[in-house]
């Protein structure tokens, strides 16, 4: 003999959830009321409970399993930024602003004269950097346009005779201190070297 189905599909659908004890109070009461009057659903519920018993297995030891779970490692500094103390947020912001300002100043040449090493200065002036320091005074470089690379000048070997003569004449005119005036260095000492210096 085959078991018959209850015509109330909603109630039948709820039976396994009822058996598992997962219904809310209202639905639980509704199913109980229906079961009191429905032999088909009582039979189906009994079948469901028989399946649950048939597949019962020993319950694993929770303590043994939990012993294999590594404790949560507390991560220092995991507090979200917006929840950190105000002084810490303020200090971070100040540092970031200072760093940004420094970066911008360096990239733009700082808006004023910049001291460069003697050896580099001598190269700008076309003097051999390998020669011993003759007590030359600090030289300033012209401000660099943003995004341009530093150009130290050309090698003496690349200069023509005429350019060398022009260079020597110019050097004779340099007396002691070179003015820390960007206008001075903005004007190339060696005329035409920029265009011709690198060519053979």
């Amino acid at each position, binding site marked *: *003999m*085959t*078991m018959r*189905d209850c015509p109330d599909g909603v109630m*039948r*659908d709820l039976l*396994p*959830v*009822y*058996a*598992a*004890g*997962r*219904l*809310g*109070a209202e*639905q639980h009461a509704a199913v109980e009321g229906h079961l009191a009057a429905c032999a088909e659903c009582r039979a*189906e519920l009994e*079948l*469901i409970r*028989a*399946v*649950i*018993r*048939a*597949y*019962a*297995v*020993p*319950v*694993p*030891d*929770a*303590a*043994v*399993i*939990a012993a*294999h*779970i*590594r*404790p*949560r490692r*507390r991560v220092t500094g995991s507090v979200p930024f917006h929840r950190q103390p105000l002084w810490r947020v303020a200090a971070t912001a100040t540092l970031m602003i200072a760093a940004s300002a420094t970066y911008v100043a360096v990239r733009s040449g700082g808006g004023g004269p910049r001291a460069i090493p003697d050896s580099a200065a001598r190269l700008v002036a076309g003097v051999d950097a390998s020669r011993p320091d003759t007590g030359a005074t600090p030289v300033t470089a012209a401000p660099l346009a943003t995004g341009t690379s530093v150009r130290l000048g050309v090698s003496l070997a690349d200069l023509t005779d005429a350019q060398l003569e022009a260079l020597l004449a110019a050097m004779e005119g340099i007396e002691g201190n070179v003015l820390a005036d960007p206008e001075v260095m903005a004007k190339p000492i060696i005329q035409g070297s920029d265009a011709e210096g690198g060519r053979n």
Partner: protein
Amino acid sequence: MSSASNEDRAVDAALIERWKGGDQLAATMLVERHAAALARFAASSGVREQVDELVQDTFVRAFNSIDSFRADSTLRTWLFTILKRLILDRRRAEKRRGETVELEDGHAVQQYDALDAMVADETARRVRQAVETLSPLQREVFLLRVNEGLAYGEIASIVGSTEGACRVHYHNAMRAIKEALGDDA
């Protein structure tokens, strides 16, 4: 979603937070809440040996990646999904080693021989035989619904199907089991 399910979610969420805060006892409580269901699922999926080890691996993996757990599913559903992947991995590994335990419909009754020892009840044996006549997908849906009382949506996310299809699988399975038991009587 039932209020019981909502309550389960709230309790699980609170325990997870406690564990994240360093309370290791909360981990034990979470294991106690879900280990039996996972063991049942493993056994009903054809796992015959080392069920406890499989359940343990499921929890270890779950706790290691607890931050990836999203509240759009229940913790139990998420654990079932992890366990199912582990079962499939184990089957693949066993197959590579030649220890095939492929769950074919015709062999399914033999797969549960080990469980026979645990369940002496004659009625239970007949019920299991009836359940084994189902297709693997039907059986999985049916047992998740009956053993755990999961919602169709939760079952769908575990077995990789749709809510509607799971509902149909469940009712077809119930009808088939009734017929099998009726014919057997």
